[in-house]
C-alpha cells in the first residue's frame, strides 16, 4: 500500500463535509511551504475528490483514502485516521489536523522526535504562551488517567511499534463501544469515537507514546483552554475576543501575541480568503 517518497513529511486528512477541509489543508500546505525546511504535506482525500490544480501544486502528494470510506456517514470524518500509518509516503511522518498553520520552522524538532517510534503531543499552549491547564474538554482523560495525547500533532516513523500502535487504533475505531466500555469509566465515557480518545487509549495500552519534553507543542485555540474568564470562555468563537493579524511577511499575531508554535485554529471562519491570499502572495513573491 505504502509508497515511500521522502524521509520526512507531514500528513493530513481532508475529507470535506460541511466544512471545506481541503481548503484548510491547502492553507496548511502554504504555511508549511512558507516556514519549513522540509515543507512536504501529503493530503489524504476521499477517492474521487476534485483537487484544484493550484492546490496540487503545493501538496506533495494527494492520496486517495484506501479501502472503504469509514467516515462516509460521519460529520466529523475521523474514522479513517487509523490509516495514516498505512498510507504515509514518508519514513517519518507528523500527522496533523488540517485546521492548523505553521508559523516558524520546526526543523530542529525532527531529530528529537526521531528518537521515538511514536510521539504524541501531550501539552498545548494558549495563544499567550501559557501551558493550557484546563481539562474542560478532556474530563474523560482525567477520569481515566489517559495520556493527554492530542491527535492534531502525532509523530510516527515506519517501525514495528508504530505499526502496532496503528493496528490497535484500528481495532479501537472499529469496535470503539466495546473498548470504551472495557477501559473507560461510565460517567465521562464518550458517546462517539474521536481520534484523541482512540489514540490516547491505544497509547495507554501500549505505553511509550508520550514523552516529557518541551516539544512538540502547539497552540490550541479552543476557548476554554485560554484561561479566560468563564463568561468569555463559554463563547466558542474565540475570534470575537482575540484579534488576529497576519502581516505581509506572515507574522501571525493572536490577541497581540506573536505566534511561534504551530496554531490549531479550530474555528473554521479563521481561514478567510484574505488570509489565504496573503500566503499565496508571499509565496509567489
Amino acid at each position, binding site marked *: 500500500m505504502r509508497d515511500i517518497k521522502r524521509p520526512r513529511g507531514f500528513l493530513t486528512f481532508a475529507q470535506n463535509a460541511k466544512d471545506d477541509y481541503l481548503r484548510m489543508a491547502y492553507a496548511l500546505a502554504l504555511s508549511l511551504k512558507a516556514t519549513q525546511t522540509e515543507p512536504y504535506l501529503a493530503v489524504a482525500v476521499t477517492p474521487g475528490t476534485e483537487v484544484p490544480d493550484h492546490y496540487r501544486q503545493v501538496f506533495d502528494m494527494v492520496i486517495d483514502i484506501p479501502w472503504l470510506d469509514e467516515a462516509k456517514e460521519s460529520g466529523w470524518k475521523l474514522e479513517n485516521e487509523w490509516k495514516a500509518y498505512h498510507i504515509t509516503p514518508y519514513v517519518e511522518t507528523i500527522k496533523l489536523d488540517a485546521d492548523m498553520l505553521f508559523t516558524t520552522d520546526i526543523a530542529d524538532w525532527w531529530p528529537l522526535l526521531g528518537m521515538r517510534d511514536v510521539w504524541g503531543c501531550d501539552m498545548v499552549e494558549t495563544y499567550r504562551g501559557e501551558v493550557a491547564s484546563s481539562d474542560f474538554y478532556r474530563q474523560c482523560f482525567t477520569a481515566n488517567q489517559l495520556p493527554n495525547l492530542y491527535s492534531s500533532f502525532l509523530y510516527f516513523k515506519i517501525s514495528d511499534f508504530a505499526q502496532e500502535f496503528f493496528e490497535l487504533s484500528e481495532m479501537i475505531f472499529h469496535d470503539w463501544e466495546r473498548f470504551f466500555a472495557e477501559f473507560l469509566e461510565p460517567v465521562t465515557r464518550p458517546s462517539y469515537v474521536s481520534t484523541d480518545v482512540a489514540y490516547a487509549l491505544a497509547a495507554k495500552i501500549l505505553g511509550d507514546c508520550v514523552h516529557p519534553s518541551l516539544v512538540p507543542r502547539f497552540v490550541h485555540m479552543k476557548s476554554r483552554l485560554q484561561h479566560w474568564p468563564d463568561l468569555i470562555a463559554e463563547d466558542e468563537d474565540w475570534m470575537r475576543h482575540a484579534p488576529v493579524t497576519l502581516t505581509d511577511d506572515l507574522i501571525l499575531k493572536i*490577541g497581540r501575541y506573536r505566534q511561534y508554535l504551530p496554531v490549531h485554529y479550530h474555528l473554521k471562519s479563521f481561514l478567510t480568503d484574505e488570509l489565504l491570499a496573503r500566503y499565496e502572495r508571499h509565496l509567489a513573491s
Partner: protein
Amino acid sequence: MSRGVLMHALNNEQIDYTLIALCNALAIRHYLDVPICLVTTQGSVAWLRQKYATLVDRAFQQIIVYDDRLPVGTRRFQDTLSTQRMLRWSNFNRVDSYALTPFDETLLIDADYLVLDDNLKHVWGTAHEVMLNRDIIPLDHGSVPPSERWLEDTGIQLCWATVVYFRKSRLAEMLFDVARHVRKHYAYYALIYGYPAELYRNDYVFSIAVHMLSGFTRCDDIPTLPSPFLFTSFDRDELIDVPMRGDLTFFLNDRREAWRFTLTRTKDISVHVMNKFSIVRQADKLLSYYA
C-alpha cells in the same frame, strides 16, 4: 557604579505624595542604605519643606524639580469603602526616569510601595539590565482580580511599574524610550491593547513596552525582581496602625463580601499600599520609627 532609589511624588489637592515619599525614603535608607533621589515639583517640595525641612535633607540626597509635566488628568481615589474622590492625577513623568536618574543602577519605586525589608538589596550588581514584576499577592492571599493580571481579559499580561530596577544600558534605554512612545500615543494603544484610555497607568505603559521588547510574546525576557511578586493592599483596605518598626496593621476589605473587613498584620515585608490617604494618616508614626 552609583546605586540609588528614584521616587516620583507630585502632590494633588488632597494627597500629600511628598510626605508619603518622605516616610518611604527614610525607611528605604534604613533597609537598603542607598541614596534616594526625589522627582517632584516646586510646589510639592516647598509644601513638604514647610514642616519637614530637616528630614527632607536627611532623606533625599537629591531633589529634581521637574515641572515639565504633561497635562494633568483626574482619576478616582478611594479611601476604604467609605470615600471616593475625583482628584488630579499627575503621574506621567515616570517614563522619563531613565533620563532623570542620577544613578548608574536605579531602583524606581512608587512612593506608596512601603519598603520594610532589605529584599531589594539583591538587585545591585545583577547581570540583568531591567527587572520588574508581573505578579502581586493581596495581603489576604486571595485571588488577584483579572484587571490586575491582564490589560484586558484576553489581552497581554500586566507588568507592575511599582518597582522597576534598571541599569544604564541599551535595553533599559529602549524600554523607557518605548514607554515614552506609548505614553505619547496612549489613546491609540488603548484601542490596540484594550485598556480604558481615560485612566493613565504606568503599569499599562510598561506592560506594552515590555511586550514589544519581548518580541510580542510572553515577557520572560525581562526577569522579575528577587521577590517575584508585590504584596499589595488595595485602596478599599486601610492601613490603620504602625505599631512598631516594620510592622503594619490593616483592615482588609473582602472583595466578594464588601461588608467584611479582616484585621491583618504584616511584619518585616514591603507592601504596596494603594490607599494613599491611610498612609498619610499614619505618616507621623512611620516618621517616628525611621526619622
